[in-house]
């Protein structure tokens, strides 16, 4: 405690923080810096606690995408569904899609899940609320790297040798996490108030998956194809898949546009999240 330095002054009033944007942005940067260390610790805490209590450990990161892959390979091989021709062997195509989709899905779920798990902490201790979101991103990244490692191994088994474009794959995964986090964070404030969001999210994600070329390739025409083309997630999945397998990405511009949109959205929902937290916390514990 240094008496020489002037003490930081904090003022709480009923005024909305957004009414004085300059101060709000300063606070945002400050809190972001403050939460660097904390979010890392929280992520390490959650990851180590998670794996200390399971027998399968890291393999849990793979269960959902593997199960998804198995189902679609079975449906396709048994001829129940005709998914159309793919440039890659179908199991590889589905596995890549399912893995990337799982990364996106985890990123969407992470902010709400993290905030719900930290309810007690949020309600009682004042710490930078960004830490929870960032800690969630760390965990998604951790799981994503496990998935990528497995994916590369499977590609090798199928004799697909990645091109130099593989260096861009982390960028593709990062874009998926970016978009996922923006959507997830958008839902977090309301999701903390109403449990409907948490319950409805998996259903919604299921639908969204079928509107994205995850388990089947893009086709030339039809309503479905139009929907797929309009879906901003399509370029993310497609481009990343192309980078992984050494194919030429067709959607590069669209990919960049989506990323810009995601960044703008994330900034917006970050502000909303900050504004919302005191109000949500008040309702959460009442």
């Amino acid at each position, binding site marked *: *405690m240094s008496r020489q330095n002037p003490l*930081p002054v904090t003022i*709480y009033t009923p005024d*909305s923080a957004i009414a004085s944007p300059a101060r709000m942005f300063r606070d945002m940067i400050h809190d972001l810096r403050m939460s660097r260390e904390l979010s890392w610790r929280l992520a390490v*805490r959650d990851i180590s606690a998670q794996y200390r209590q399971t027998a399968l450990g890291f393999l849990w990161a793979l269960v959902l995408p593997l199960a998804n892959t198995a189902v679609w390979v079975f449906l396709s091989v048994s001829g129940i569904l005709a998914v159309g021709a793919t440039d890659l062997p179908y199991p590889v195509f589905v596995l890549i899609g399912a893995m990337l989709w799982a990364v996106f899905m985890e990123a969407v779920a992470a902010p709400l899940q993290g905030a719900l798990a930290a309810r007690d902490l949020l309600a009682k201790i004042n710490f930078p609320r960004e830490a929870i979101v960032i800690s969630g991103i760390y965990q998604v990244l951790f799981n994503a790297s496990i998935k990528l490692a497995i994916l590369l191994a499977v590609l090798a088994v199928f004799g697909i040798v990645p091109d130099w474009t593989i260096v861009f794959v982390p960028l593709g995964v990062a874009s998926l996490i970016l978009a996922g986090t923006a959507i997830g964070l958008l839902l977090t404030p*309301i999701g903390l*108030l109403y449990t409907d969001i948490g319950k409805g999210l998996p259903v919604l994600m299921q639908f969204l998956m079928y509107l994205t070329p995850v388990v089947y390739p893009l086709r030339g025409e039809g309503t479905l194809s139009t929907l797929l083309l309009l879906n901003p997630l399509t370029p993310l999945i497609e481009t990343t898949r192309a980078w992984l397998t050494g194919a030429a990405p067709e959607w590069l511009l669209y990919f960049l546009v989506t990323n810009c949109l995601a960044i703008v959205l994330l900034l917006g929902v970050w502000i909303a999240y900050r504004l919302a937290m005191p109000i949500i916390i*008040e*309702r959460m514990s009442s």
Partner: protein
Amino acid sequence: MNDTLIKVEGVSKRFCRSLKKSLWYGTQDLCNEIVGRRHGRQGQLRDDEFWALKDVGFDLRRGECLGLIGRNGAGKTTLLRLLNGLIKPDSGRIEIRGRVGALIALGAGFNPILTGRENIQINASVLGLSKREIDEKIGQIIEFSEIEEFLDMPVQSYSSGMAVRLGFTVAVSFEPDIMLVDEVLAVGDSSFQRKCFDRIFHLQRRGTSFIIVSHNPYQIERLCQKAAVVHRGRLSPLTGGKEAIARYHDLMQQELAPSTTAAVSSREGTHELVFDRLFFENGDGQATDILHCTRPARLTADFHVTRPINNVRIRFEICSADNVVVLNLTANGLTESRQFEGKHRIAFSMEPLRLTSGWYYVNAIAVDTNIRLDTWNRAAEFRVLLQDNDAMLLTSDCGVFVCDGRWEIE
């Protein structure tokens, strides 16, 4: 050293009784906040809302310690949460200078699967300590917590006392400018408690200001220079600890007692003598159940007998809220020598009453040598109120009876 660290002006906070409505209001507030509208509108209540805090204001300077007392749900914790910036005020303004620490949720965020050591690091990080500070302090924290041998065990195998102790240790390990303490000083055994007190005194000497919520009058008196009662969302003026405790006791007694009475009023006996009515009158001769320590009071009982009786003994017991007989008023000498027939009235005048503030009840008892004629438990109840100009604050906390006597000193 005289700088003000906390300045609270006219702060109010609404809460909602119904969960469904509360969630809906939350959504509304959220939208208002995002479009930049002021929180709490013009300060009117919506349907099903009430003021959890209303027009609270006070200043606290460096090194001062403010004790808050009040019943559960009076708004104490809400005030701490506002000061901690967890929730937004609906009106008013809070100005805080310096780093705020909180002894509120001890061990919140502890992960049961991780070890004590890991949890110390995480908890300290949540409380805002940097990695360097944690590395510097961890030895000190471990030593203070006295649970070194369990440190590498998962926290789920700790006793709840140990977990809270660990939380306390982490929370007091750094030296904030302001420390908010919510009812946590009852942790651990007495030797650990003494350490906690010593730590608080140490921080106070270093210039940390405290706000302490406690139900324990001893703690308030010992730790706080100033204290205030929070009652139904309002804060009494800041006074000394003793005065605030007196005020609190007075409130407690006035509020709590009546709800428990009806059920326990009972009577037994042969009913050859029956008390019909029992009441108090004030100095002006008006029947009332509100009396004052320094003013006259008169206890009157109407009774009748079903057959002529002599050898009756009548007495009244005045009992305090904790069922202790504090006065036994016997009329033996007067009634034993008399024959009773039909209806009678007996009265006892106390000039003044001399009972300290609080809630009391009266048992009326009539016996004929060894036979119980009528025992009427809780025949009447009354309250003694603190007077506004009461310099001595005569509450039952400092004795129930003010004796009239004469001192001599040689």
